């Protein structure tokens, strides 16, 4: 424990995968640096293929970085000690199909150094917590995706970890399961655990994360608190009748961000008062307005916007 406040310190991590063809290397991560504090819920957000799984797999020793270093609890990730007080729920995991839920806890719990009696004491409560008590004696191969995810979460908490890594924990889980998983994460947060959450769903991270980093095609675009990360700009939905092509073209020229579909216009402004300019323009062209409805741009859309902007900058 060199640094008491930093749970995870990532310094200049890059990862290149050799492609199937010669020369077509995949740059899955490009010089990623970030720090996660103790007790923090940290969300790593990005579209599919951004490199989130790659980063977590590097931290937990499944992948070797092409460059850079990282520490967990002050231990270099190349040492087994870094994985000592850690829980991990991998993406698309397949637990050994021949094990029952309880046997799975014995096997993976034992590998963290726990004794059988320690596991026995904790397993009951955890299986109860994730709602898997009645399936404890059933083989994993008969589990649904949601059941696997619940068992996976019980496994994550088994060794009382300080830091928990979750890679798309609600993937393939039904809405009720999602809600329950979210509650479990909130419980973990109350217990003071550090959580590193990978997700491609903004809604999933915004409700529970303290801080978020956005990753796109291997690069960190932004890091910060959820609120400040994504600016919520006012948007308006305008309905007209008889919107002709020329008027639509004029609107598009003045407001390049406007989305025009038949008689409906959707546009985002930096300042809410700008909507007056647009309605004036529409009237000048002799088109009648039916309604002007203000609308809050959703976080999801701002997130997509941010990703689009980062693409344009290249």
């Amino acid at each position, binding site marked *: 424990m060199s640094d008491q406040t930093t749970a995870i310190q990532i310094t200049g991590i890059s990862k290149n*995968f050799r492609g199937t063809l010669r020369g077509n290397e995949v740059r899955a991560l490009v010089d990623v640096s970030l720090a996660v504090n103790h007790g923090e819920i940290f969300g790593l957000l990005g579209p599919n293929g951004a490199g989130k799984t790659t980063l977590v*797999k590097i931290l*937990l*020793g*499944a*992948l*070797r970085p092409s460059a850079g270093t990282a520490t967990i609890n002050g231990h270099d990730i190349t*040492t*087994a*000690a*870094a*994985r*000592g007080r*850690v829980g*991990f729920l*991998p993406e*698309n*995991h*397949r*637990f*050994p199909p*021949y*094990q029952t839920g309880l*046997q799975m806890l*014995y*096997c*993976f*719990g*034992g*590998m*963290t*150094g*726990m*004794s*059988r009696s320690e596991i026995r004491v904790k397993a009951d409560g955890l299986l109860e917590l994730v709602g898997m008590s009645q399936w404890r004696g059933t083989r994993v191969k008969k589990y649904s995706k949601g059941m696997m995810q619940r068992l996976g979460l019980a*496994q994550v908490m088994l060794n009382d970890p300080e830091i928990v*890594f979750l890679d798309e924990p609600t993937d393939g889980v039904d809405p009720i399961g999602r809600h329950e998983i979210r509650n479990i994460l909130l419980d973990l947060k109350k217990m003071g655990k550090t959580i590193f959450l990978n997700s491609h769903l903004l809604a999933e991270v915004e409700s529970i994360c303290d801080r978020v980093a956005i990753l796109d095609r291997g690069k960190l675009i932004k890091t910060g608190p959820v609120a400040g990360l994504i600016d919520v700009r006012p948007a308006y939905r305008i309905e007209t009748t008889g919107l002709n092509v020329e008027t639509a073209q004029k609107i598009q020229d003045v407001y390049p961000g406007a989305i025009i579909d038949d008689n409906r216009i959707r546009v985002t402004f930096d300042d809410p008062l700008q909507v007056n300019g647009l309605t004036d323009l529409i009237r000048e062209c002799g088109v009648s307005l039916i309604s002007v409805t203000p609308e809050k741009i959703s976080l999801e859309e701002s997130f997509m916007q941010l990703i689009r902007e980062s693409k344009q900058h290249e």
Partner: protein
Amino acid sequence: MNKFRAILYDSFLEIKSGKMLYLYGAVMLIMVLIFILVPSIKINGENLFESGILSPGMITRGMAHFFSGFWGFALFLMVFGSAWLLPAYLGKGRIELTLSKPISRMKLLSMKFATVFLVKISILALMSIIIWLAIALRLGAFSMQFFFGLFFSFLVFANIYALVFFIGVLSRSGALAVMGYFVIKFSTDLLAGRELVYGFLGDSSWKTVLDTAYQILPKIGEMDDNYISLISGDGFTNTYAIWTTLAFSAIIFLLTLLIFHRRDY
């Protein structure tokens, strides 16, 4: 210790769930039945094993031949039974969680090897001892030298498994591991008779190539020669095959650890 026990438990569960166990059981049952029935065979109205036609020495020798064949066959089955274990262990979605546990990769793979080895030789020992007991009780031939043979079969299995393990880590395919094993076993069995073709090879560099290949490769077929002499009480006959095979296995085991240590999963 807890970590080793957890990995042992996992290996045990996985081997227990496989269909191979039924096959081992069936083979053992057939052998036991044969030895229960064979002594009832009558020659000229006299029971074969009570007539004194067969001396105890002959029975021991017969037993040596039997077990030599039996272990050859049982280990052949075990190649099939164990080749897919490691590729399955390293499968996508399964190995990531294992690697995230606080165990170094070298230790993890060594423990995986050791635990599969322990479970497999326990099965082998159980099958062999039950058959041995059937023979001993029915024929009255309590050959304690059988145990030398049994321990030696463990050693042979360790060598076979090191090879299958190596190809399993390298290719992540159980089928390739089985094929690789047979290709190597077959080539060394052929190479053992390389002197037969020396006459046709005028060029001496060919002899050097064949000779070197023979020296380096594991001689699993030839190791089997030792079973008969061990049970008959004559000690080892082919120690050269043993040492060179052990050296080969030790080197590929280290190589397996190194490859595993650097791999991305």
